[in-house]
């Protein structure tokens, strides 16, 4: 018997109301992500990749359909419970890194842990471990403005892993990086997945998508 899925989406539909009329971003998408799976979602711009990622990450609610995360139906959760679920079970990596500019690399990685009320000693240990994991121990006290794009994305990955999530969602993680740096980030994501974290990557980067165990193509809000 196979392990229960990390996330399971059934018949997801997302319709955005627009002044010119409703736009269907997703139409009847079903998807199951198993533990330690590495899934790449590709497709043309506007096909609904990021919308699917946001739905899987519980930052958006579907117009219809259901999402179960670690066996819990997300639709039945309150906003606070969904926040808690994201904090504890999901890691996000964004195209534009979105590190907090007033915090150091260390503080950015520590932030989700303190929000989850992890004791200080454990936070310190985990932050040190994660910065070492992404190769940035020596840049711990640096602010994002003092880091390169690749370094910022590595800090963002460390932040995503801070609370030991079962699922990491990465939206164009190499989109802002040159090829060499993008490859380093792709290597790092491989390692994250190899260490047991399920990974869903939305990307236009064919080389990055090729590293995934499962590649999904999307067109016009549907899985191809």
């Amino acid at each position, binding site marked *: 018997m196979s392990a229960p899925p990390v996330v399971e989406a059934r018949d997801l539909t997302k319709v955005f109301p627009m002044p010119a009329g409703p736009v269907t971003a997703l139409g009847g998408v079903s998807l199951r992500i198993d533990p330690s799976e590495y899934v790449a979602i590709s497709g043309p711009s506007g096909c609904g990749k*990021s*919308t699917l990622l*946001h739905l899987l*990450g519980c*930052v*958006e609610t579907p117009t219809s359909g259901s999402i179960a995360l670690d066996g819990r139906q997300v639709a039945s959760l309150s*906003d*606070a419970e969904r*926040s*808690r*679920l*994201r*904090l*504890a079970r*999901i890691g*996000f990596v*964004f*195209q*534009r890194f*979105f590190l*907090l*500019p*007033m*915090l150091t690399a260390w*503080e950015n990685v*520590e*932030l*989700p842990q*303190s*929000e*989850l009320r992890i004791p200080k000693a454990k936070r310190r240990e985990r932050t040190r471990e994660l910065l070492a994991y992404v190769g940035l121990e020596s840049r711990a006290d640096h602010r994002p403005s003092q880091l390169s794009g690749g370094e910022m994305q590595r800090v963002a990955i460390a*932040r995503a892993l801070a609370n030991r999530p079962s699922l990491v969602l990465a*939206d*164009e993680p190499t989109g802002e990086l040159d090829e060499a740096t993008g490859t380093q980030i792709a290597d790092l994501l491989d390692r994250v997945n190899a260490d047991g974290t399920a990974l869903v990557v939305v990307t236009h980067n064919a080389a990055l998508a090729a590293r995934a165990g499962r590649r999904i193509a999307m067109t016009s809000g549907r899985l191809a």
Partner: protein
Amino acid sequence: MSPAGLAWRGLVRQPARAALGVAGIAVVGALLFDMLLLSRGLVVSFRDILEGAGFDVRVTATDAPPLLGPPLRDAETLAETVRALPEVRDAVPLRSGKAEATAADGSTLPIYFFGTGSRSGHGWTAIEGSGLTPSADAGTVPVVVNRRLASRLSLTPGSKLRLRGACGSQATALPPVEMKVQGIVAFPFDSSAGLTAMTTLPGFLRVCANESPGLAELLLVASKPEAGADAAVAAIRRVAPGLHVFSNEQLLDRLQRTDFSYFRQISFVLSAITIFFAFLLVTTLLTVSVNQRLGELAVLRALGFRRWRIVSGLLCESLLLVGAGGLLALPGGALLALWLDRILRTMPDLPERLHFFVFEPRAVLLHVAIIALTALLAAAYPAVLVARLPIAATLRREVVS
């Protein structure tokens, strides 16, 4: 990291914006603090002067302000009657008039001139010499003068002072009376430029050539501490039902409703305006700040920060901005109050000890409460923006922009 810590780091990250915000709040906060001081300053100051005079009840013939209405008749008998009341410690009739003091070079100075039934020193503070003690020489009229008159005429205790009364109908016909200065004193209601002399009631009558004996404009009464002013007022009303009897508190209450109410209304209007400016300033700063950081805030929400956590961070930012500005406003407001008070006190004929801006701990507490409330209200709109922030749509917008 706590919401306050995160808010602090957010402010430090943009020091110019934070400094401008704090400076703006400090300026409007200083004005607010001054308005709070002004709203009760006159009352507090006037109470100090009244209580400093040593009397807590006043009796007049009508409800006209003291010394401005018709005089009491048979005042010394009235004083005796009142003094005999068990609630009363002392009762002193006071006459007022005008006189001219003659300087050594023969020139004359118009002065305020009073006659009092008190020899105890109630009603003035001795600076030099004694009070109105009976003189060994029965023909000598004792007088105490204020420091300004003493200075103008080079008077010291023991000096002679020639006064010509300007009393009622005999104003110009009265001969001067030579008086002996027994002390230099400070009268509670002395104005900054006023020249004042006070003698005994018989002395007053001599200067005024026995015009209208038995009259007094005012009866000053000191209640016994164990009885209190209200009991003394009630007792005097029983024995002198036709007269107007009021305690210091009642006088202050009347002044608050009449003469002082202008200042209270002005301070209220200006307070409301300054609070509104503070509110607008903080709301604008925070709204701009929130709009600049929508991406960051959406990311925090995506990472799992609860809505309330983000809103509380914003409230902390508002409180830090307004708190820092509000604290700076206190010394700034105090200096401004001293300056404004000095300007207002140059108005003629005001008691020298009267202040318009008076520091009270309650003004600081009220200032802090109003500032904190303003901070919370000012954060309301940006807080709503943050609370309703659509995470996914904001992230999409940030990536596209």
